[in-house]
């Protein structure tokens, strides 16, 4: 499959392809959700224009309830009369439906694809369980356990990146351009940093995960990543709010 560097994507080419791809795309989401952020990143990488609709999860609107009656969650991608739910399902839909434009999100090789799916699912499971677990922990003991888990996850991913890039010197899990694992992990970055600030633990430590920290630099340098990831201070504020209201955790000082 022809690769075009996402960074050097010609402006004129994007414009004509946006016209072709126009099929009434709507993305329902909330600004802090990493599951939504990754969709935004990929839509931008593909050069697809879409309408973004911020949702109030405390007061779920008709559109949300109509298009995701099963889970009543975001993100939801509405494409014409189609609704697609679950972020990793949405990503694959975008990749497959617009396979002829932009760089592919999943690799061509079936084994590499299986690995990408496996690690993306792992990242999401661990993010909710371990990283958010740090914020939700009610005791110092529980918090320490989640912190240890989170370090373990990052070590694991350091190893995965090492394997992915071994010998190829490629900058991303996806190779030359960002792929499935990149957006799944990358969309969590603001939250990981917010967890660091709230809990006082340095998770993104270049002495422990040097390859991932280099990857992070490259990832954050991408335009559509920069203009998608929310400001960490805003996420910190939101995280503290969740601790106080939804999770009812009194953070230890």
């Amino acid at each position, binding site marked *: 499959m022809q690769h075009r560097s996402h960074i050097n994507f010609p402006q004129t080419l994007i414009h004509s392809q946006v016209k072709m791809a126009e099929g009434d795309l709507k993305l329902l989401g909330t600004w802090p959700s990493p599951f939504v952020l990754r969709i935004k990143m990929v839509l931008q990488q593909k050069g697809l224009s879409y309408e973004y609709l911020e949702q109030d999860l405390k007061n779920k609107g008709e559109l949300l309830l109509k298009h995701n009656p*099963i889970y009543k969650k975001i993100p939801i991608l509405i*494409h014409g009369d*189609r609704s*697609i*739910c*679950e972020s990793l*399902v*949405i990503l*694959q*839909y975008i990749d*497959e*439906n617009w396979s002829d434009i932009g760089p592919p999100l999943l690799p061509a090789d*079936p*084994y590499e*694809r*299986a690995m990408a*799916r*496996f690690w993306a*699912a*792992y990242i999401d499971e661990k993010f909710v369980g371990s990283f958010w677990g740090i914020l939700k922990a009610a005791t110092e003991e529980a918090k320490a356990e989640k912190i240890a888990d989170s370090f373990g996850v990052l070590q*694991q991913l350091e190893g995965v990146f090492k394997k992915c890039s071994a010998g190829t010197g490629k900058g991303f899990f996806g190779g030359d351009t960002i792929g499935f694992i990149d957006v799944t992990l990358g969309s969590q970055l603001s939250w990981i940093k917010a967890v660091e600030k709230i809990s006082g633990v340095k998770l993104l430590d270049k002495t422990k995960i040097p390859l991932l920290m280099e990857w992070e630099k490259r990832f954050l340098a991408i335009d559509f990543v920069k203009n998608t990831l929310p400001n960490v201070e805003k996420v910190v504020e939101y995280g503290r709010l969740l601790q106080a209201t939804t999770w009812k955790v009194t953070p230890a000082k």
Partner: protein
Amino acid sequence: MERSPSSLKLFGSWASSYTHRVQLAMKLKNIQFEYIEEDLANKSEALLQFNPIYKKVPVLVHNDRPIAESVIILQYVDEVWSDRPVLPTDPYERSVARFWCHFADDKLGPAVGAVFASSGEVQKAAVDQVHENLALIERELREGFFKGKKFFGGESIGLLDIVLGCGSYWLAVFDEVMTDVKLVDPEALPLFHAWLREFEALDEVKETIPAVDKLLEYAKAVRQMLLGMSNNATADSPTATASASATAPVPDITVDS
């Protein structure tokens, strides 16, 4: 008869519905492989080496490269052996199949497992969950995306049939074992019930799923053990049932073991 190529191995467990999914796909595609039965109470070095993250079955090892997680394995198999495809070709249809596979493993499976591992009020709540989840599938069959289709995959079984089917046969087994529980009421879920009958009638399915009496015997033993473990605390308390399933040496039969 051709000897199974050792370049393709499947680590599984005879009572694991997740293993059956892969075996069924292999049968549909006529793929030869070596099957290795795992004792889940005493996992082999090989399994732990091939699936260090989750330490579960099924694991497919192809040319010494392991793939874990049944739905990921199914997609891998479909992509490598393109005969008799299991996923549809249309991107939207694929997304619908993937969504419902996620639902099956994320909501339905755990709810069924919760029914099996509990009793009393906790079980009643879990049964309600199962009914709710099955009703959602029934609705999709009645008026949604799968309306008028013989199988979720259309005229022949596909990914979602395999995922839902290999698992749904436990529903009747559980109904047998727990006589005061009814998970599938044919009157409340006529289309789901009809689909399940069609699925179970297929030769490939009959050749893949173990005999009902074996499943029944196994289920009875597991249930007895699970309830026995929660005898120290009230059977109704969530912590009792949670710890029962967490410490059970016999694998939870409704999740990847």
